[in-house]
């Protein structure tokens, strides 16, 4: 299927919309009616046709507009993209991984032609046709990581691996759930996770790190994380929190269905071949409450998850003040019927909402 790219905004007038296709394939993150942090990792080896898990780097209808938003964020604050000097080789590794994956997975959108180190990259949706010398930085308009991640949805952390530890030594971070690359750069796995509640005590980070250190080339992994965002704002950065924080107070019982968004991150992990670094793409998907409610199973489940979420998590995720209003809204979509196991909407088989 060819993708119709939306012309939309993630700021100011917020013209972002999900098509029916995008709603159906939204990565709903709850496989049961409750949620707690866990080492929820699995192999990233494709998934059902059309799902966001199918391709190595999912491209969807928001691609072109998301890249425009990223360019605006970077123009305002170039510190959102940083790479410590020893990370350039990992940047080339990443460029190669993305160019090869996208040209194989979306041959109608992306082409890569290689003749030794002479490469030609064609990105049709963004109208790019560049020839350059692989591993020669002077032949690209940006460093390799910045060049390719200006053309790829999702944030990217590139982790150096040394002393049995991962170090956040490079990244492109413009669609983050309220954390700062500029503050975290150079930190290790435990340090950058310091503000997360409960998970350290549960031993989650120790086990997660062990798993990550052992990820092999060609055997990527993935997990989901989620939070809540008022308005489809991609750049929920701490840097700009003093500007966007106020938007959280604009929810009303009338507008919550369209304004409140579930924000899901599809996080993947790839080992890079030359540098032995690990790349961690964090792909953000947004879906309004009212669109989620078109799937009866998701409506029932989201109500139960939000209702029963421990207070520490609702606070950390920044929606504790709005939770009562969310529950008023969501409870209308929970008729108490059981839900089927797993994340899929099961639209054909789940009972419609009893009224």
């Amino acid at each position: 299927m060819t993708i119709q790219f939306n012309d939309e905004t993630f700021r100011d007038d917020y013209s972002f919309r999900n098509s029916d296709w995008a709603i159906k394939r939204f990565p709903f993150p709850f496989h049961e009616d409750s949620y707690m942090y866990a080492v929820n990792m699995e192999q990233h080896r494709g998934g059902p046709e059309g799902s966001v898990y199918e391709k190595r780097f999912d491209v969807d209808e928001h691609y072109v507009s998301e890249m425009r938003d990223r360019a605006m964020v970077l123009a305002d604050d170039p510190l959102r993209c940083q790479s410590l000097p020893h990370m350039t080789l990992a940047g080339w590794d990443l460029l190669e991984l993305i160019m090869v994956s996208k040209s194989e997975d979306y041959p109608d959108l992306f082409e890569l032609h290689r003749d030794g180190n002479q490469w030609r990259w064609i990105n049709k949706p963004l109208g790019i046709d560049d020839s350059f010398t692989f591993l020669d930085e002077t032949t690209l308009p940006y460093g390799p990581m910045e060049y390719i991640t200006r053309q790829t949805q999702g944030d990217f952390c590139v982790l150096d691996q040394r002393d049995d530890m991962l170090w956040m030594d490079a990244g492109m971070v413009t669609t983050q759930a309220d954390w700062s690359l500029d503050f975290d750069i150079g930190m290790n796995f435990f340090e950058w996770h310091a503000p997360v509640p409960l998970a350290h005590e549960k031993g989650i980070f120790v086990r997660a790190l062990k798993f990550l250190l052992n990820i092999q080339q060609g055997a990527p992994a993935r997990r989901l994380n989620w939070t809540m965002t008022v308005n489809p704002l991609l750049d929920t950065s701490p840097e700009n929190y003093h500007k966007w924080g106020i938007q959280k107070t604009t929810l009303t019982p009338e507008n919550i269905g369209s304004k409140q968004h579930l924000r899901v991150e599809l996080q993947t992990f790839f080992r890079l071949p030359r540098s032995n670094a690990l790349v961690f793409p964090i792909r953000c998907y947004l879906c309004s409450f009212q669109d989620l409610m078109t799937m009866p199973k998701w409506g029932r489940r989201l109500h139960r998850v939000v209702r029963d979420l421990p207070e520490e998590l609702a606070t950390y995720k920044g929606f504790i003040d709005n939770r009562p209003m969310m529950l008023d809204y969501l409870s209308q979509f929970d008729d108490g019927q059981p839900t089927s196991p797993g994340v899929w909407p099961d639209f054909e088989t789940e009972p419609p909402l009893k009224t």
Partner: protein
Amino acid sequence: MSKFQFPESIKSRPVYGTLEPRPGKAHLFVADAEGAEAIIEVAARDAGLMAKAHIIYIPKGADFADKLHALNPAQFYEGPTYAASVQRLRHVLENAHQGLQVYLTGTEGLMGQAQNEAMQAGIPHTAIQTEHRGSVARRMQCVHCKGITEDVMTDPFVCSHCGLNLFVRDHYSRRLAAYQGVCIDAEDPGNVPEPVELYK
């Protein structure tokens, strides 16, 4: 007592120890304020060490310079501020030979910044010791304007660069040697709680 037991809540904060005299060809001490007391204790435990020691000391109003001088270190420098001393510190680190032992003591801000200088100069972390002494004030980076405010004693506080009211997030960057300050009244402009003293 100038020692303070930090609560364990912050996973990104370095753990500080107690300075111990170690064998080494040369010894560099960097201290501010009450950090002087930790140096005096090291000297008391190894009387020979001071003959090979270079002390860089920033008093910050404390009254220990004479006592440090009386230890007869090979070199003694009293600097008015850390910023004024850092050129000298860099020079010493860059010209250090194998076997230099580095001792950092005093406030977190001083230790964190000096540790970065030492690491950048290639001093192995096994040759660097730290001991917290004196004020528990924090060095804060405003996440919004990136400006650093030194010696913050209260939460919330006002960013000395952009003037926003910031709360102290329990997140520490060794690279910046600073904690993170985040706007406290973003969701309710003007509603700024009374500042309370840190760790109280």
